[in-house]
């Protein structure tokens, strides 16, 4: 029974199927909104889905310099880990697994898609991919510090005098005390988190790793067909996961009583977060340089998050 339940969680809701469907939907929304902000009509909302299916239908070329196993397994591992993260994030009021330390699990699981991208890119044997993975890794190092600080601040705020790495506790605290975002001491952390989300997903100003014009899509350079489709799906799912994480960390206090309504509200909030932190930044900024990105995250964003952590630590 446990196995069946776990399989349901992993495969359908809130795991693979749910996450990928809404991930693709969010990616579509993102593309549409960016297009509208650039005064274009933009692709239909289903466009990411078309992209994904088209890529499934294409030939997968494995270059002879690549390591076949790592090359093909990397996107799948990224996919599975993303499906798994969703089990730890409260979707509305629903959490598949609730434990006492799942924030750290999320933090680590969320690095796996990045690592999968890096290993996949690295295994393809292309020097462009080499530069790409280097940048991807620096990006990861850059956003990890503010991300950690934000998580700790939230944990401290929600936990009070006791430790609360649990997402469920964060959700419960918010259900009692209102959204985390409306605590003024948490606002810097929320801003920091809003800036962490696009870097994690790898959208426009922070997509140094996959800069298609400079380094030919970096780690993805040798990917084609189904494997590439999986990576594109991963990006879309990351969008959903990261915006979902933001929503459950900072906007988790909205409860209607019905699980279905909560889930719908959750998704709507995800869309809003996506539009604010990904589409808008994408539409109005140009790609950063990698050293600027690192400096930006370790000074400005980390400073914001640290500010919040200190405020929370002072009991505000």
């Amino acid at each position: 029974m446990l196995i069946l339940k776990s399989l349901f969680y992993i495969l359908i809701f809130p795991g693979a199927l749910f996450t990928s469907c809404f991930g693709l939907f969010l990616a579509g929304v993102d593309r549409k909104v960016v297009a509208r902000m650039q005064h274009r009509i933009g692709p239909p909302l289903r466009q990411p889905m078309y992209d994904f299916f088209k890529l499934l239908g294409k030939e997968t070329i494995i270059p002879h310099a690549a390591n076949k196993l790592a090359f093909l397994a990397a996107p799948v591992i990224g996919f599975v880990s993303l499906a798994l993260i969703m089990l730890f994030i409260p979707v509305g009021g629903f959490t598949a697994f609730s434990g006492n330390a799942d924030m750290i699990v999320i933090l680590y699981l969320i690095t796996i898609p990045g690592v999968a991208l890096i290993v996949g890119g690295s295994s393809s044997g292309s020097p462009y991919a080499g530069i790409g993975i280097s940048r991807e890794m620096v990006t990861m190092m850059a956003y990890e510090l503010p991300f950690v600080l934000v998580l700790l601040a939230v944990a401290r705020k929600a936990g009070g005098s006791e430790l609360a790495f649990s997402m469920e506790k964060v959700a419960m605290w918010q259900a009692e005390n209102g959204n985390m975002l409306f605590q003024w001491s948490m606002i810097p952390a929320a801003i920091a988190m809003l800036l962490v989300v696009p870097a994690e997903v790898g959208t426009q100003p922070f997509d140094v790793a996959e800069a298609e014009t400079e380094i030919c899509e970096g780690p993805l350079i040798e990917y084609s067909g189904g494997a590439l489709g999986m990576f594109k799906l991963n990006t879309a799912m990351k969008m959903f996961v990261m915006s979902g994480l933001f929503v459950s960390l900072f906007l988790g206090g909205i409860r209607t009583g019905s699980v279905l309504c909560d889930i719908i509200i959750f998704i709507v909030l995800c869309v809003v977060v996506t539009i604010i932190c990904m589409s808008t930044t994408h539409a109005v900024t140009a790609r950063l340089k990698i050293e600027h990105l690192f400096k930006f995250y370790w000074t400005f964003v980390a400073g914001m998050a640290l500010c919040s952590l200190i405020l929370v630590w002072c009991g505000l």
Partner: protein
Amino acid sequence: MIQHFPVLAVMLLFLGAFCVEIFGSKNEGIRNTITMLAATIALVLIYALIKPVMIDGEIISYWMGNWAPVSGYAIGIGYEIDALSLFFALLVVTTFWLSGVYSLSYMANDHHLGHYYTLYLMLSGSVLGLVMTGDVFNMFVMVEIMTFASVALTAFRNENEGTLEAGFKYLVIGSMGSSFTLTGIALIYGQCHTLNMAQISAQLSCGGLTPTTVMALALIVAGFGVKSYIVPFHTPAADAYMVAPTSISMIFSGMVNKAGVYGMIRVLYIIFRVMDQSNVQMLIVLFGAVTMFIGVTMALTQHEFKRLLAFHSISQIGYVITAIGLGSALGLTSGLFHAMNHTLFKGLLFLTAGAVLYATGTTNLDKLGGLSKRMPKTTICFLIGAFSISGLPPFNGFVSKWLVYQATYTKAVESGNFVYAIVTVVALVVSVMTLASFIKVTQAVFFGQLPAELKKTKEVPAAMLVPMYIMSALCVLCGIFYPIVNKYLLYPATNAALNVTNYIDKMMGDGYAAGLGVSNIEVAPAAFSFWNPIVWLILFVVIFIAAFIVITGSKSSRGQLLQPGVKYDPKYATFFSGEEELFSQVGGSDLFWGFKTDWKGYYRVLEGLHSGIVTDYAVFTVIATAIITLCMFIFMR
């Protein structure tokens, strides 16, 4: 019967060392047989202790020559194996046994192997003796034998670049540390007039700390700090791990610095019992945090595979020291678990480094590349090790690191001390940097393009692969079946470290501790409600099914790697903007450019400090010892 096992194991190893020197210096077969026989018997003997010690909770005591305590005074040399000792003993035997198996083929092309195996067995015996002895002076003797054998083994391939130098630095810093330890032991002896740990512990806990004992504590902590290579003492470790034969590097990181960690735990938790003092906790935690940070940042800029691993050893020991410095049950559990995991994954990584060295003849990250096509098995083992050390779920490193974060942050929340929160942040960031430097190795050694001179590389022999497989399997299993590990290894060991009464009573007779007013601390086993291995197993199955479907189901077409000189089908060639395929490997030193430019100033200072001059390192050692002493005196007032 069972109480003879520990001392037999140690004796056998030393006996084996002499026998190898006497009988085996000429004949390879005899030499290998003696070595493996001694190692295997020691392994079996120590594993046989799991049942009584770990599961039944017994403590085994053994008095050399049956010199049992007389009227409350322990005169003889005692061996005492509680769960903590056995925990480390298990690490030690596993490591040296695997290293022995690995050595058989790895060292096969070297000369003077008789000496090698003698030193190897002496090193193993000394570390095993160190973790099982109940006598502080015996501990010192074992430390000295360990240092001695380590130095000799470091300089074993003395025709190679840098080995002598590394050995010399190791010797100077190591014997400085030993001297500190000895001074500390002498001071304790002056206070307590006994060398038995149980008795010292009992006497110190009832008498409180005097300036002499504080001095002794500081010196012994510094001494074991040198052995576990926490930061200002870490400099010889990087050199020694790098140049020693890889089987020995594995022993160094798996056993020798664990011996230092063991010494720290033994001294801080059992002998002096000072871990309830928040200032001491802070001191140790800060040392740990600095260690992990400096270790990992230094590792990020290394160009040598093994030197990089050496700096990671330092960094990971930083985690362990941080965790045990917290003084909480959770902290100790996480520290022990991380020590164990470090033994597993760092041993594994050193073995893969050795395999690379064996197959290609170099470990320079800028000269290697693309080995995954030639050495796929090694690559998989390396990836498992790299993911474990970077703490990716579901490997073991993740669980122990997670415990470390939880322990530090719980400590921060409970004590309200912001420093611990910063330490948590540092630990998390260090974890990412660890990942980064292993990505660097992955790219520079195993992936990317194969240089022309490495085209003929072959996979290493099976005798070298088997230890790697065993360690990889352990890495995965310890991560997935964490509850079992916790129940049978970590919880007893933590319990043993925190509850001293049993330890004292077993050694000195029942009621001895109670008579002196030593009390126990209740330990709750660290548990995670959601950590359900079945879920992870399902996940694994799902991953494999999905990967299988993708790999077999997609219309993938594979380019064949033809013989050199034959033109490739351009369809399967690497995309070089249309150019003909060239050799272009993004090597280790070319990675992480943005990071390095932003940290230029930091690295300039740090590389200046790692000057390679032995007297500089001696100065660090002395200064750090002075700082520890000073802090101890200020805190213990």
